[in-house]
């Protein structure tokens, strides 16, 4: 009996000890950072955190008087986990804002949390179109420092059509991000006279693409790829093994050849063209300096995931400059943030009235060469054309665009598929 009670008491001591709550310091800015630190997107999480940390370290954790407390939560790339982590950061760690997430589904899950908890959520990566489009009113505490999925696709569709690409087959990850990237491309590409003749949707984390590759239509001249997760390296390799490269042109979403994975890729991606708001090969002084510092610090070329979060830190710092380091409250913070114009490594950024960045979109081609005085020939996303100050609505009429259905698996319909 005594033994039993002894154990019971021990158990309750452990429970009581675990209820200890860390105290919040006064006069500080608490930032909750959500990244998928475990799982197939772990490399991306590292890039994101490093980008943000670099800006923090450069400024010694002090944004114009606000002392930054930086707390990372692991989303495991699952929306449900992200929601709980967000609630934890808000309720337990009392953060002033949330930043991060990767997958579109995580963005869709976190936006309502920001509304419910009246806490600012800065989406540095999740690009789900509707959060700053058709649903923007529902999420007043939501602001984006990254991009919408279809933002680079719109200019790219036009570019591809003008540069003689005619019949395109798409292989894109089977979720919102894939639909929106492909949908945006299809819209402008077909409006200009191009044809999407086949759309394939392998699941996220597909590793073996051979069944999809073997069914690529022979009369296509271009393959558009968007793998997500584990198979990002495999898809171009398998395309090469199957002889699709170099028979057809290789194009894709910017993330398919992003610097988080580019150093690990082989010669099969040389010549691949993709659009994004960032390239580590950008030749502006800011970009070159950013790449240099990041490389020296982390031994790796910064990806768009790094740049986007570095820039996010920079933007928060800019807001804090206006408030002299005082937290202005969520609503005021959003107001101040969206009125900013900043010079980021990626180029000039301003915000539209739906809280999404207006920014340059770069059409980039993968080349193997020496750049910026680095010793070896490496793969770089060399910028071949710049579309300056692209909004998420491209050249469309905003009101009409918003009346159209969102891009999905079946929209826009594939008119030229058989």
């Amino acid at each position, binding site marked *: 009996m005594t033994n039993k009670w002894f154990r019971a008491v021990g158990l309750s001591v452990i429970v009581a000890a675990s209820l200890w709550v860390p105290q919040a310091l006064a006069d500080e800015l608490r930032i909750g950072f959500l990244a998928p630190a475990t799982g197939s997107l772990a490399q991306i999480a590292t890039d994101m955190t490093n980008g943000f940390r670099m800006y923090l370290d450069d400024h010694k954790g002090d944004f114009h008087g606000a002392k930054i407390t930086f707390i990372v939560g692991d989303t495991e790339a*699952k*929306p449900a986990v992200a929601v709980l982590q967000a609630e*934890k950061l808000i309720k337990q760690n009392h953060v002033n804002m949330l930043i991060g997430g990767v997958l579109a589904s995580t963005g869709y899950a976190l936006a309502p949390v920001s509304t419910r908890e009246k806490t600012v959520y800065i989406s540095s990566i999740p690009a789900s179109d509707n959060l700053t489009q058709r649903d923007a009113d529902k999420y007043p505490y939501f602001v984006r420092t990254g991009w919408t999925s279809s933002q680079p696709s719109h200019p790219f569709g036009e570019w591809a059509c003008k540069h003689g690409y005619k019949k395109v087959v798409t292989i894109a990850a089977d979720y919102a991000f894939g639909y929106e990237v492909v949908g945006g491309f299809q819209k402008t590409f077909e409006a200009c006279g191009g044809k999407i003749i086949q759309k394939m949707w392998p699941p996220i984390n597909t590793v073996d693409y051979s069944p999809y590759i073997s069914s690529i239509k022979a009369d296509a001249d271009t393959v558009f790829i968007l793998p997500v997760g584990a198979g990002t390296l495999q898809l171009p390799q398998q395309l090469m093994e199957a002889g699709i490269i170099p028979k057809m042109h290789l194009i894709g979403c910017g993330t398919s050849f992003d610097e988080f994975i580019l150093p690990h890729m082989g010669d099969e991606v040389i010549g691949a063209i993709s659009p994004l708001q960032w390239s580590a090969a950008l030749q502006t002084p800011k970009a070159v300096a950013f790449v240099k510092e990041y490389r020296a610090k982390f031994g790796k070329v910064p990806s768009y995931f790094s740049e986007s979060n570095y820039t996010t830190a920079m933007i928060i710092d800019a807001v804090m400059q206006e408030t002299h380091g005082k937290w202005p409250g969520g609503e005021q913070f959003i107001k101040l943030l969206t009125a900013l114009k900043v010079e980021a490594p990626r180029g000039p950024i301003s915000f539209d009235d739906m809280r999404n960045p207006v920014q340059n979109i770069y059409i980039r081609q993968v080349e193997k060469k020496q750049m910026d005085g680095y010793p070896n020939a490496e793969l770089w996303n060399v910028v071949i054309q710049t579309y300056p100050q692209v909004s998420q609505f491209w050249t469309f009429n905003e009101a009409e665009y918003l009346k159209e259905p969102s891009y999905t698996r079946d929209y826009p319909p594939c008119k030229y598929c058989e």
Partner: protein
Amino acid sequence: MKGHRKPLAVLALLFAVAVLTPHTTPFVLLLVTRILILAILAMSLDLLLGFTGIASLGHAAFLGLGAYMTAILAVRYNFGLGWGFPLVILFGSLLGAATAALFGLFALRARGVYFLMITLALSQCVWGLAYRWDSLTGGDNGLNLPGRPVLGVIRLGNDTAFFYLVFACFAVSLLALYLFVQSPFGKSLVGIREHEVRMRILGYNTWLHKYIVFVVSGAFGGLAGVLWAHVSSEVSPDDVTLATSVDVLLMVVLGGPGTLFGGVVGAAIVVFLREYLSTLVPWWQYVLGGAYVLAILYLPDGVLSIFRQRPPPLAAGPVSAEALTPSPGPGDELKINQGGIE
């Protein structure tokens, strides 16, 4: 130990939880709410695993169905956000039961590891539906609920109010399941667990008994799902994955299968270790892993066995129906005799 002590201890514990939780931090309140919901699911699984002796890897399906039904009604039909909510709870349970009735027809033809595989496959079908039926379920994006229900002056958007709703559902489930397993029917399940052939020889339609318990289990799974949809206001295919089923199984095993309340303890341990400890230390996964290993090595009958004395020897006269813990061991044969068979 006297038979009535354990229900009393459980009652006292529940009372303490109900009174104290709202006075802790908001995050602890949220975690306890989640624990209670998962506890309903774990108890429903315990009916199968602990009492009937059939392990299912498909319990996420019932949770998912209840959750998706709630979300779809709320998002697509704007139903269940007011006084319709009690109906949603009812529908959720019925949907869970109906699905279990369907799944049971396939799954209960097998036993052991084959039953495990079939339940896994069936729950993957539900996952597939959630992931692929875009127009209804929102696919990979999932569904965001517009908010928690408002019942007159009671706004469940308030975390404390929602906690009490969940607590009430939990308490009713615990009581119902307790009465269920204490009934002669419940005893017949233990008989099936211990020796199904003998039960059949004694004239029991064991298939029907298992089928009924499977349906009951599904109903409570569906109920947990309805609450689950509202706790995070978000439903996604992740809720229906194998990982969820395994989690629930772990909770039951960790807490103590065949004890009903073990599932509650297991849910509390898993959720607190995972969600709370992770806020304090970065190496929480090792603690969780260590806890699993230690529990299996030293408490193979679950954490609740700390409070249990050695099973009484067979000759010790009439065995009191050990309230919440019909322990596997020599005592069982006697209990069966007391309960179902005669």
